[in-house]
């Protein structure tokens, strides 16, 4: 039984028409059908968080959602972060990860970036403790988390400073 769905997905501000099996999860459609391979897929049962993307600005596990369920939502993947920042291609959050060595092998990084992006948008004043609590959602086997927490905290502080100056 093959149940094909025609779906329209809004990914990073662009509309895509996709024909895919209804059993395709959002992460598989992003990677295989839209060739947006920045989003990684790890455990496929909602534990590791490598596939985290934003759906209507909120971080979600793209392996725990069928693509068909995402119709009518706004999806953002890690590819969206560096857009519109001119010559310096990385976003402030990505630069903070780089500066603080918040990654080693990098497999988990897209998930952590989107988790942090969604969380900071909702809680720009988050304390370091709250950041520590939130990043427990995702697994990183290299860094020990300390540098990830510092990167997110530093990025949040810089954004707050920039907000005050404006």
């Amino acid at each position, binding site marked *: *039984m093959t*149940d094909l*769905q025609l779906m329209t997905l809004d990914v990073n501000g662009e509309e895509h028409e996709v024909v895919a099996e209804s*059993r395709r*999860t959002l992460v598989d459609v992003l990677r295989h059908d839209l060739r947006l391979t920045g989003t990684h897929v790890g455990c496929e049962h909602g534990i590791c968080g490598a596939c985290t993307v934003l759906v209507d600005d909120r*971080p979600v*596990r793209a392996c725990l959602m069928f693509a068909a369920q995402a119709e009518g939502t706004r999806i953002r993947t890690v590819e969206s972060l560096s857009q519109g920042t001119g010559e310096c291609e990385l976003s402030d959050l990505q630069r903070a990860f780089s500066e603080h060595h918040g990654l080693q092998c990098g497999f988990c990084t897209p998930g952590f970036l989107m988790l942090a992006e969604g969380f900071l948008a909702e809680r720009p004043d988050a304390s370091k403790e709250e950041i520590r609590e939130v990043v*427990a959602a995702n697994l990183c086997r290299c860094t020990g988390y300390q540098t990830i927490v510092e990167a997110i905290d530093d990025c949040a502080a810089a954004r707050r400073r920039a907000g005050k100056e404006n």
Partner: protein
Amino acid sequence: MKPAPFRYHRARSTEDATRLLAELGADAKVIAGGQSLVAMMNYRLARPAHLVDIGGLRALDHLHRDADGGLHIGALTTHHTVETAPPGVLEPGFGVLRRAMRWIGHLPIRTRGTVGGSLAHADATAEWCLLAVALGAELVAEGPHGRRRIRAEDFFFGYYTTALDPGELLVEAVFPRPAPHAALTEFAERHGDFAIVAAAIDLDAEDGSVRGGRVALGGVAPATVRVPEAEAVLAGGGTFAECAAAAADASDPPGDANGSPEYRRHLIRTLVRRACEEAMSP
């Protein structure tokens, strides 16, 4: 892994959903947030032939107080919506719900997972199942023959089994009275994991003195349960420690890789007492 093939149906209304469920029969499953179901499908522990997606039924996404002070939570309300609800909606009286949300998985699970999905999935350690039983919630089911209300303590039958008929959809949870002295606590090896044992308490107290209360436990039986023996201790003026001991004595928890029956009884004693104390702290 990847899930087995299925046919996808998008419900346009609750009537549409119940009609689809009646039509498709036992091989159909409802999907809301999917945070338990999709994981089980990826593992192929669940292989429904049909999925009825109710995610678009915005009428089921609501959270409001009624004139009597009760709280109505639509089935599609996410844990995150409860966690971030404006103070006037939950407080006073239902702050316990906001505080309990942090026990549910992690942020990206709470943004998708729904109250109704959690209740209908009926994992015995699920926070919403415990809250519903402890706070005396009524669960509203809609089927081909209209709506009916089921008391939470009559709703959970056993492992992932509820009083819902195959053609029925859970549409709302109603918490009829405020619970200013209530708490939920649990123990898991890692934060965000399924609890090994979870306890929820709703105390009937005034001016610091306890007149009685309701005690609910998860992880000690196939379904979330009330513990009348422990409630009798509270009604009889016993201490929290005596209440906790009665709960442990009255339980016959299973032993598995997560803990022996003795270990679980130890957790019951600790957690019931902790929840009682937390319920009375301002």
